[in-house]
């Protein structure tokens, strides 16, 4: 059966005052997935999310959420009615109390989950009568998450949900998220530059660099298909031109030649052996290594 895509972008572009924040981004987020949107700071993650939620207008291409055009006013309202969102700054209304903030948000969502609200209030130990401005960063994040999770949404869009949290708080938030998604039928699209948390909870991933998706796919497939082939030679390593497809990057350092392959490691291996190395090692690659190899290092 063909995948139903909750989010689809095609050649999506956004220019801000001469800066190309998003440059021809094409994504497909299947229903029911936990989709990690990975990129360095300034890669275009937040801009993409703003385009999906109608907070910014694309300068080119298209973005559809639930099959609705994200840049059309009415459709955008429908998208937001069916989407829970946590922004990277976790900014809420400082002048409201936690209880007021919850009551205010609930009024916009007919499918508001009062049962989940009670559950997360207890789990996160949120003080109902405290003003938002008096909440710690961690508490603010938990409240923002509660407000997103209780909307009865079909899609959660989270922009750097754990930014600024300590490891214990990060773990707590991620666990809450995973537990929630396991219990509810929903799609999660979350951006992060924390590779470990994407590795921990995502089942699909897109790596974005300078406004462009440089890698997309199921995390398990990526782990399965990516390999690092390390060849050690007697003397200086040669400069081979591999003909086999799937070579992502080749690095030479002294006697060592390292090849990163995204697919077809066997064929590359055949070519590598023809170079008569002293030793050949093929090792699996972590998401962190894939990420570091696929994003362009800027000076």
């Amino acid at each position: 059966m063909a995948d139903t895509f909750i989010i689809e972008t095609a050649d999506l572009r956004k220019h801000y005052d001469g800066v190309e924040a998003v440059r021809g981004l094409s994504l497909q987020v299947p229903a029911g997935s936990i989709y990690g949107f990975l990129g360095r700071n300034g890669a275009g993650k937040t801009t993409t999310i703003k385009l999906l939620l109608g907070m910014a207008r694309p300068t080119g291409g298209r973005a559809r959420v639930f099959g609705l055009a994200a840049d059309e006013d009415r459709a955008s309202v429908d998208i937001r009615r069916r989407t829970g969102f946590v922004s990277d700054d976790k900014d809420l209304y400082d002048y409201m109390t936690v209880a007021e903030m919850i009551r205010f948000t609930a009024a916009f969502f007919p499918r508001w989950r009062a049962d989940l609200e009670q559950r997360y209030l207890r789990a996160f130990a949120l003080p109902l009568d405290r003003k938002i401005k008096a909440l710690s960063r961690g508490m603010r994040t938990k409240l923002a998450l509660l407000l997103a999770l209780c909307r009865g949404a079909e899609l959660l869009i989270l922009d750097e949900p754990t930014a600024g949290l300590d490891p214990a708080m990060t773990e707590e938030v991620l666990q809450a998220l995973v537990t929630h998604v396991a219990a509810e039928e929903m799609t999660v699209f979350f951006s992060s530059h924390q590779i470990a948390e994407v590795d921990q909870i995502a089942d699909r991933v897109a790596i974005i660099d300078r406004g462009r998706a440089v890698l997309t796919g199921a995390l398990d497939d990526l782990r399965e298909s990516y390999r690092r082939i390390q060849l050690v030679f007697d003397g200086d390593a040669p400069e081979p031109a591999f003909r086999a497809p799937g070579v992502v990057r080749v690095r030479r350092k002294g006697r060592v030649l390292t090849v990163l392959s995204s697919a077809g490691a066997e064929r590359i291996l055949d070519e590598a052996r023809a170079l008569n190395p002293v030793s050949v090692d093929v090792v699996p690659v972590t998401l962190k290594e894939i990420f570091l190899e696929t994003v362009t290092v800027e000076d």
Partner: protein
Amino acid sequence: MLWYKSWLETRWRFVIGLVLLMLSACGTVLSYPQVVKLLPLAPTVQVSGEIGRRVSEAMELARTYRGFVWSEWFRQNMLQTWGLFAVLLGTGGLLSQASGGGALFTLSLPATRSRLLGVRAATGLAELLVLAFVPSLLLPALSPIVGQTYGIGEALVHGACVFIAGSVFFSLAFLLSTVFSGVWPPLLIAICVAAVLRLFDVVLRDMSRYSVFGVMSGETYFRGGGLPWLGLVASAAASAAMLYGAVLNIARRDF
């Protein structure tokens, strides 16, 4: 709930404005006996130039309670204080909340930007309506204390003139708040515009009844010439145009 949010965001400005205007209305009424005592001294005041002319005019108007109330309250105290709070209530909103004020959270709600803006404008205008009428209605209520009477109808007419014409300052600040991201630039620009208009009003006295402040004070009505319909309609149209401009501005804006 957007109403509630707008109310929470503006309530202190509104409450302070209401208290100040009510105190000012009380002060105007209660000061009348002192003014009456000073009236016999009026012919001895010899000041030349514009100031002398204005003093004489004020003294002349103060010979009747109606004239005193109009001159002191509707033409001066209320006009300036209400105008200031119109600007204060017009500032703020989505753009100024873009950094640290929860604008992204607001924009993530299933509400169109025009609705967000419309509710904020309506809340501000409702508050200004209260600021225009409640202190004005204190005048007829308090006048018996100083042995005078002041017509409720007159207070309502002047209150309506202040509200309708003065809303241009609210709308100007509202429009500027969709152009500048900070709170201060819209506030300062709108106050400067109001100050310049007020200066023209003072300098070009012959034209003053056609100025926005002239329409706000309801001078033609006070002098028996009827309501300044043209000025009221023009002010309302200018306000509506600026509010519409604000909606268009926010609709095309990226956050």
